């Protein structure tokens, strides 16, 4: 069983559209994250949730809205997509906030045309 799973794996869409990426973890972790990896492989945290509560919201445009229906799921919705949103988005989870060990999904490659 995949520990952290994301869908879809690939997403190609037009500018201005709205899209969502879903993430689920079956590890029983309390904390989940969204990271963005750009074309130069630079990784930057976007959001972090602990037990469905938002604890980190980096300087991300408010077109990005995370939603955590329960502690096993953290979805990312993006409105009015722009070219610069093209990237690989990684979901991750950790057992608690004090180990630094993150378990990553395989990534969702978003291409905005």
């Amino acid at each position, binding site marked *: 069983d995949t520990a*952290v799973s994301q869908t879809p794996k690939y997403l190609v869409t037009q500018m201005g559209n709205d899209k969502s990426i879903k993430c689920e973890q079956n590890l029983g972790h309390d*904390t989940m*994250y969204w990271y963005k990896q750009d074309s*130069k*492989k*630079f*990784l*930057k*945290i976007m959001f*972090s949730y602990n037990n469905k509560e938002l*604890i*980190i919201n980096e300087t991300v445009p408010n077109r990005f809205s995370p939603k955590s229906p329960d502690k096993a799921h953290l979805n990312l919705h993006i409105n009015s997509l722009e070219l610069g949103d093209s990237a690989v988005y*990684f979901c*991750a989870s*950790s057992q*608690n*906030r*004090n*180990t*630094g*060990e*993150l378990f*990553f*999904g*395989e*990534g969702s490659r978003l291409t905005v045309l």
Partner: protein
Amino acid sequence: AQSVTQLDSQVPVFEEAPVELRCNYSSSVSVYLFWYVQYPNQGLQLLLKYLSGSTLVKGINGFEAEFNKSQTSFHLRKPSVHISDTAEYFCAADPTGGGNKLTFGTGTQLKVEL
């Protein structure tokens, strides 16, 4: 602000040769350090971490890293690499020990050749 520098964007090496991937960090407080590996088309996987204690940390797949506070470095080493070690390696730092403050370096592409 904390930053992590990986000086080498690419490191080519022959199979069975030793390798060192360099990482330097800047922080005004105590810091926790990590190395993650990303295989092609996969997510990141923790190789090893330094939180406290012995400065030499051993990880999975025969990798180890040494924390050097005076040089603010946390270089990753392996005495003999295999083709399967070809991947992107990321150094990361966190002043709190928790994953929510993890700052990643820009990555080093290790390419192992026959």
